[in-house]
């Protein structure tokens, strides 16, 4: 039996408990105390991730009406619908941190929160849909698998669900490129051209080199991030080089070579100036993507209002029914 009065659970204790849970690699849940910086970092990251999912519907949505067969069309619709779903899982995870859906969408629409720079590139041909599935979703999976073990419970659980669904996205892309690469000369050239255009931007998806990555160190200390940008980029290159060989397509990177000493493929350096330009809004489609998003949101306003009015009317009728 202790004679000391129990200490009031102050900020210090809370911080210590939080640090202890991180050190033990336990999960933090919404009602746990957490440092403001941890909360802010997660809101920024999860929101950016959610925005990327819903903006990511646009480049591929562009090809739904022109898919070359009913099968490819059904697959593409399912994939784009999944992206919407992934956005919703992630917005719902972000909301557990005390931010509203409306606020997050406002931040996106005002350009105050970002989405992945990859979606600011255009989808010029049908083969781009295959290249996005293979390379862009492949890079996303490489990034996202470690996030399934992220310290924040709701984010980690959303990622488990997302990763399961993403693997179909990558396979259908590979499948589509595989068929094109074995088709006519024109189809083959179209597939190669798409890979040529999507290779470098997909390497940029892992973010700047570790030396220049602003948030990496702290995010790793908090078990939000498990591997650095450069580690994940290397892992991705190691995966896609043999896959490109299986496709019979080449990656547009003359520096790719097996390095027996490192046990990894060497590869070239992405154009980081281009990356910064696109991130700042100077990519080929930044303006179009945001305008489209704002318009879609504004065009949907009447649906949101109508559903609300309908719910209110039904609630009033139920109340009247009970009173009678």
């Amino acid at each position, binding site marked *: 039996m202790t004679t000391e009065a129990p200490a009031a659970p102050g900020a210090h204790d809370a911080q210590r408990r939080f640090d202890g849970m991180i050190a033990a690699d336990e999960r933090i849940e919404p009602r746990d105390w957490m440092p403001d910086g941890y909360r802010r970092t997660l809101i920024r990251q999860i929101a950016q991730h959610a925005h990327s999912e819903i903006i990511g519907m646009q480049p591929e949505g562009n090809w739904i009406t022109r898919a070359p067969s009913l099968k490819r069309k059904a697959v593409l619709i399912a994939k784009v619908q999944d992206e919407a779903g992934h956005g919703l*899982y992630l917005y*719902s*995870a972000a*909301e557990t941190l005390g931010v509203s*859906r409306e606020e997050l969408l406002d931040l996106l629409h005002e350009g105050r929160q970002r989405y992945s720079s990859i979606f600011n590139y255009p989808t010029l041909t049908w083969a781009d849909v295959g290249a996005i599935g293979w390379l862009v979703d492949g890079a996303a999976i490489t990034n996202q698998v470690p996030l399934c073990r992220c310290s924040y419970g709701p984010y980690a659980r959303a990622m488990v669900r997302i990763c399961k669904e993403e693997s179909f996205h990558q396979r259908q892309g590979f499948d589509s490129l595989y068929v094109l690469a074995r088709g006519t000369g024109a189809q083959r050239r179209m597939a190669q051209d798409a890979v040529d255009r999507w290779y470098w931007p997909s390497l940029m998806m892992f973010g700047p080199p570790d030396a220049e990555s602003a948030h990496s160190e702290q995010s790793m200390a908090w078990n939000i991030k498990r591997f650095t940008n450069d580690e994940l980029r290397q892992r991705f290159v190691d995966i896609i080089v043999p896959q490109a060989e299986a496709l019979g397509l080449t990656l547009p990177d003359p520096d790719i070579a097996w390095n027996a000493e490192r046990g990894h493929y060497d590869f070239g350096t992405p154009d980081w100036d281009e990356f910064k330009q696109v991130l700042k809004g100077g990519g080929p489609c930044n303006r179009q993507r945001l305008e489209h998003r704002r318009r879609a949101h504004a065009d949907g*306003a009447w649906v949101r209002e109508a559903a*609300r009015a309908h*719910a209110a009317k039904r609630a009033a009728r139920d109340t009247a029914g009970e009173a009678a």
Partner: protein
Amino acid sequence: MTDWPLWEVFVRARRGLSHVHVGSLHAADAEHALRNARDLYTRRQEGVSVWVVPAERITASAPEDRGSFYDPAEDKVYRHPTFYPVPDGVEHL
């Protein structure tokens, strides 16, 4: 214009299993929430039954209570079968 109300979603994966919390969504009313939950959380036949509950109607224990809230159970090891020694040779106990 503010968001539709928030609903927590619980899905039963197969008959015989409990409903498990899978996430949340916004919807104007309960029926709308059910339909949205179907579209969002069972696109690959993940469930045979869905519950939606208004998020604001859930009362949760506070994580800070961990110690005091659960300590009535802490000193009752005799609630576990392993508390009782079994003499050698005794079976089916």
